[in-house]
């Protein structure tokens, strides 16, 4: 079983997000980057499938500038076999059609059985890359996957639907599957894994980037018209005011 995992490097949920003066993007120097949350679950699923099969290969792929080598190394430290970096400038990389084409070109000769990706990136939130890629490579596709079972060249996946519903879908491999968070418990890299990762190969590709079909004009902090009553003070004062609010304004105690 040959499995590709798409891993995006995104700002951590605790990172500050200073906007550049021209509002074109955030100031990347000031960001702490992490592995995209759902991609972490996708990687874990791939590693578990390889371990259950006793053989196979897991390849982590990230598209972005040199900083993304860090998440590739993290994937390798957790147990992926090798990595591919598709070296592009991050600021222009907003169009999922362009990104998926670049990834498709990079992997089409590899004949992966499965491509796992996250259901959505925590920065751009396009929610499309894995499905577009699957379509481009003629693979079967499924999104929002919460469980996988592989047998006889087919994959059966449990898809999340709206409002607490699920559905099992079965399809032939090769397949491109987008993973929803929570389907497994992602591992942490071991010390041995971290040491071993240094010797693993990262193949760096520098492709020609196609014309974007959608682009970002500006980013900004949203304005809210909601009047929020802010309660402040020391922790004890806040607690006192909250209890008063519960009693006198909201009337729940």
């Amino acid at each position, binding site marked *: 079983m040959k499995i590709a995992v798409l891993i995006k490097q995104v700002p951590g949920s605790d990172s500050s997000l200073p906007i550049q003066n021209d509002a074109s993007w955030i100031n990347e120097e000031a960001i702490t980057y992490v592995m995209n949350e759902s991609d972490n679950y996708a990687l874990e699923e791939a590693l578990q499938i390889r371990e259950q099969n006793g053989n196979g290969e897991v390849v982590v792929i990230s598209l972005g500038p040199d900083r993304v080598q860090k998440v590739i190394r993290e994937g390798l430290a957790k147990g992926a076999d090798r990595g591919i970096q598709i070296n592009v400038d991050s600021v222009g990389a907003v169009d999922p059609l362009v990104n998926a084409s670049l990834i498709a070109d990079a992997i089409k000769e590899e004949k992966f059985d499965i491509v796992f990706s996250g259901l959505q990136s925590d920065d751009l939130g396009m929610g499309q890359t894995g*499905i577009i890629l699957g379509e481009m490579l003629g693979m079967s596709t499924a999104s929002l996957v919460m469980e996988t079972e592989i047998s006889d060249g087919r994959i059966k996946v449990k898809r999340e639907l709206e409002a607490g519903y699920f559905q099992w*879908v079965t399809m032939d491999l090769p397949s491109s599957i987008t993973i929803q968070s929570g389907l497994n418990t992602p591992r942490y890299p071991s010390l041995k894994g971290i040491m071993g990762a240094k010797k693993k190969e990262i193949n760096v590709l520098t492709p020609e980037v196609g014309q974007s079909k959608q682009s970002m004009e500006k980013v900004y902090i949203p304005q*809210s018209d909601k009047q929020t*009553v802010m309660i402040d003070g020391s922790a004890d004062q806040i607690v006192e005011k909250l209890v008063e*609010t519960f009693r006198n304004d909201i009337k729940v*105690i």
Partner: protein
Amino acid sequence: MDILIVIEDNNSKIHRMGLESIAAAQSISKDKGFSIGVLVMGGNAEGLSTEVSKYDVSEVLKLNNDIISSYSSDGYAEAVKQVIEQENPKYVFFGHTYQVRDYVPKISAKLMKPFLVDNVSINKDGEKFIFTKQMFNAKLYSDMVAKDNGPLLISFQSAAFSADNAQSGSASIRDISVDIDSSMIKTESDEPFQEEAGGMDLTAAEVIVSIGRGIGKEENIPMAQDLAKAIGGELASSRPVVDSGWLSAPHQIGSSGQSVSPKMYLALGISGAIQHVVGMKGSKNIVAINKDPEAPIFEIADYGVVGDVVEIIPKLSEALKEN
């Protein structure tokens, strides 16, 4: 046709977000004089087309065919792609539902046309439109533009437009067909099912104490349980708390979990991502405690505290018990 709206079937009714798409299309059509076509498809197309024809749109396109009588991503993607090719609209509107996430990116790939997703508003800039979407889990917004002549695929976030604003009227219904065969469908789908809710129904609760990733670690869960008890409410959570196994799935509030509208919703260490907010924004009073003054939850909170939940929760429980 200028705008084609694709309506989703929600148990043989129009999905609410379909009506929101109609409201969106009507809002930009007024001064542009755009014509609006609405596509209904699948096993319930007959009934749905009658429903949709009661809205102020130019016409309803009705499509049924054995292969798309129930949903499959391949079937729907191919069918809608062919309708787009036949009708050649400038814009194709969708609600940003889970189903749309599943199949519309395929249409984007087939046609090599951009899919501008999950928009919260549309604004005019001369002749072109600017589509605004949330980024970084709602912490920032961004204005997106298409660099393509279309057809452009556009989806709208839940509640970006109000279904109540969809104007009624009377539209003609036209049968259409597509050329599609079973060899195009790569998936076999079982029936949708619901998992045991574990006897937990949060919809009746008057007070909900809801915790997010800001609770920090599993060891802090009892402190939240204690607060829920002290205030006489139910405990709930955002998705990461369930994903981490700290609380069971029925506790989850949001688009994949329960939708609630209690008298008071206490959001503790929850950032306010849209998939959470859709499940609780109907609450009468939202009280948010978050250490980040810019957390998006404050945009919908009635009362806000910038502070550390791990410090405040036990003190609050104590104070409530003393009362």
